[in-house]
């Protein structure tokens, strides 16, 4: 279905075409209508009159053929009469031609003026929209839509405004996430600090108690053994508490990434090889990245709280991951966290299944795939390299074929202490720490897809500029 703008353009074009054809026809008549001028030329008329006289004379000389000369006379007389009428109306005929020419010229000029004015009005409207978008942008509004789809100068400026707006929106989201995580980190730091002192004191006291019990000669062997066992049990619980405190500390004291330029593809391949046997129920696969150049499809929107995520379309084109700057240790920690989660989720889901298989372990697969895109990570993509103002992004997708993530967890997936595990089995800090690491790289971590067939996490890293710290 054609848009009204296209229809108006077609009507204008048709009107101009008709006017041009009419103009051509009128001009052609004027130029090729010489017969008119010659036909009413006085010489022609005079010779026709002479011819009339000749026919009459011939009829007198040849009475037998008088009827024929009479017919010829009548024909010439008729023609002469018509030409005289034309001659009499010469000014009117010429005037009519000129009027037609004037009308056509006028129509053509009016159509041209109309097209010009319509273009000006349309351009003014586009400029007004652009001005409004810039005003909204300067007022701090984000996700500004200019609605320009044409690729001329105004369209390109509009695209830049939209990209700037999206970049601002993305930065705001990152900032909000970082602020949120910073608050959690501060809470974790205080908690760890408050726990560490009494925990240390309790450990020391328990050590002394253990020594006293061992040296106490008044206790019989049975009572001593029971007391020592009790003290060991308390120490074990204190150790577990210590590990939790250490987790808090790790989260609170996440180091800033030390960026080094490197080959992310080689890093991922190395990771898959090194950690291939770290999770007995997982097979790690680093998918080969085709070297076809060019931008890939825009990434789907980042997940937000709410309903289950739609399945993301598979990437149409890939390209070998470019060299970019990242902290190998921190990025390794992210991959370990994600693989940990996949492994534990698979183990939890396959417990019953393994029992049904006679105790044989069920193994899953984690696949690493690169998507190179010019997108800024907002999920909208950008039209061309020329219009791009934000850095291009390398996305590394980590897909597993596990049971997926429960819908109830999705809204708080990346928040600290959000976990599906039972109490005591995990702090729920893995994804929060991983996202913090990616945000510190100037990238992000998002859930691209989850269903009963598996989950896909996407690591976004800026590729053509140094990651912001």
């Amino acid at each position, binding site marked *: 279905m054609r848009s009204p703008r296209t229809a108006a353009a077609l009507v204008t074009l048709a009107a101009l075409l008709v006017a041009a054809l009419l103009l051509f026809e009128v001009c052609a008549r004027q130029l090729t209508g010489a017969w008119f001028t010659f036909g009413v030329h006085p010489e022609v008329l005079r010779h026709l009159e002479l011819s009339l006289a000749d026919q009459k004379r011939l009829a007198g000389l040849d009475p037998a053929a008088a009827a024929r000369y009479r017919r010829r006379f009548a024909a010439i007389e008729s023609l002469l009469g018509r030409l005289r009428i*034309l001659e009499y109306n010469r000014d009117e005929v010429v005037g009519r031609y000129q009027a037609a020419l004037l009308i056509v010229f006028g129509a053509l000029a009016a159509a041209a003026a109309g097209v010009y004015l319509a273009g000006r009005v349309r351009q003014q409207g586009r400029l007004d929209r652009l001005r409004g978008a810039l005003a909204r942008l300067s007022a701090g509004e984000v996700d500004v839509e200019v609605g320009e789809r044409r690729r001329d100068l105004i369209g390109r400026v509009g695209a830049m405004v939209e990209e700037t707006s999206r970049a601002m929106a993305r930065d705001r989201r990152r900032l909000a996430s970082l602020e949120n995580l910073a608050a959690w980190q501060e809470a974790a730091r205080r908690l760890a600090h408050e726990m560490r002192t009494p925990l240390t004191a309790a450990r020391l006291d328990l050590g002394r108690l253990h020594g006293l019990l061992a040296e106490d000669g008044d206790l019989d062997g049975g009572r001593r053994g029971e007391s020592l066992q009790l003290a060991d049990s308390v120490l074990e619980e204190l150790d577990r508490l210590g590990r939790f405190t250490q987790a808090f500390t790790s989260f609170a004291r996440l180091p800033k990434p030390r960026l080094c330029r490197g080959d992310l593809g080689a890093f991922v391949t190395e990771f898959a090889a090194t950690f291939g046997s770290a999770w007995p129920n997982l097979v790690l696969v680093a998918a080969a990245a085709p070297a076809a150049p060019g931008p890939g499809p825009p990434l789907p929107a980042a997940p937000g709280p709410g309903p289950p995520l739609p399945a993301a379309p598979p990437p149409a084109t890939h390209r070998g991951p470019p060299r970019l700057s990242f902290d190998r240790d921190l990025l390794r920690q992210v991959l370990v966290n994600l693989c940990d989660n996949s492994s534990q989720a698979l183990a939890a889901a396959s417990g019953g299944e393994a029992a049904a298989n006679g105790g044989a372990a069920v193994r899953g697969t984690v696949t690493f795939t690169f998507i190179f895109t010019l997108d800024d990570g907002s999920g909208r993509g950008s039209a061309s390299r020329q219009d791009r103002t934000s850095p291009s992004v390398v996305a590394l997708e980590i897909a597993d074929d596990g049971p997926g993530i429960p819908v109830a967890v999705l809204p708080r997936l990346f928040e600290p202490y959000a976990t599906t595990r039972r109490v005591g089995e995990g702090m729920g800090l893995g994804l929060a720490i991983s996202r913090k690491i990616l945000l510190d790289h100037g990238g992000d971590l998002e859930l691209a897809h989850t269903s009963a067939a598996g989950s896909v996490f996407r690591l976004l890293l800026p590729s053509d500029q140094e990651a912001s710290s």
Partner: protein
Amino acid sequence: MTVRALLALAPALAAAAALARAAPLLAERPVFEVGADGVLVMAAVPDVLSNAEVKPRLTSGLTTSFVFEIAATDAGGRKLQGGGLVEIRYELWDEVFLVTATGADGRQHRDSLPSLDRLVAWWRGLKLPVLAPGGRLAAGSWRLVLALSVLPFSRAEQSETQSWLSRSVADERAAAARAGETPSPAAAAAAPLSGVLDLLVSTSIKRRSVVDFEWRSVLRVRPPGADAERRP
């Protein structure tokens, strides 16, 4: 006298010359009388045939039409309109003037006159009913305004020439097509517009009058039984 003064006087002089030329005709006036059947008859029409604009038209071979239009207004403002038509055509083969006079009563009078002098004499003696009010003119004074337009050809000749012109253009295009000439793309696209232009051209052929005359007169109509008289 300076050139500028002469130029300033030129329009006035031209008007005076035109008035002087028309003076004989303007001095003469047709005679009007009411017949026994109540029809207003025009007689003694001034000799417009000898007019310099009209005379050459008489022998052109075309039918020169003399269209009379009369308006009669009585003292009470009652207005009656009528007219008549005289067509003169010179038959070039037989060299005679064929005349047809059609009165307001619908009657036609045809004649064939061998020379211009006889034609002028016929014109002088012409009595043409110009007002058939469907009854008698009421007694009283009537102001008469008679207008005469001399048209160079008849309506039939006008229509015939219009259709001939359209036909000629169409024949020209058809002949080009028969000759195998391929029209240019622009000409082919503009072909539907040609009909519009043909119509424009053919309708530009009009019967514009060669010259116009006008006479004013007062007619006193006596009560039935008495004769009407004209008072200039």
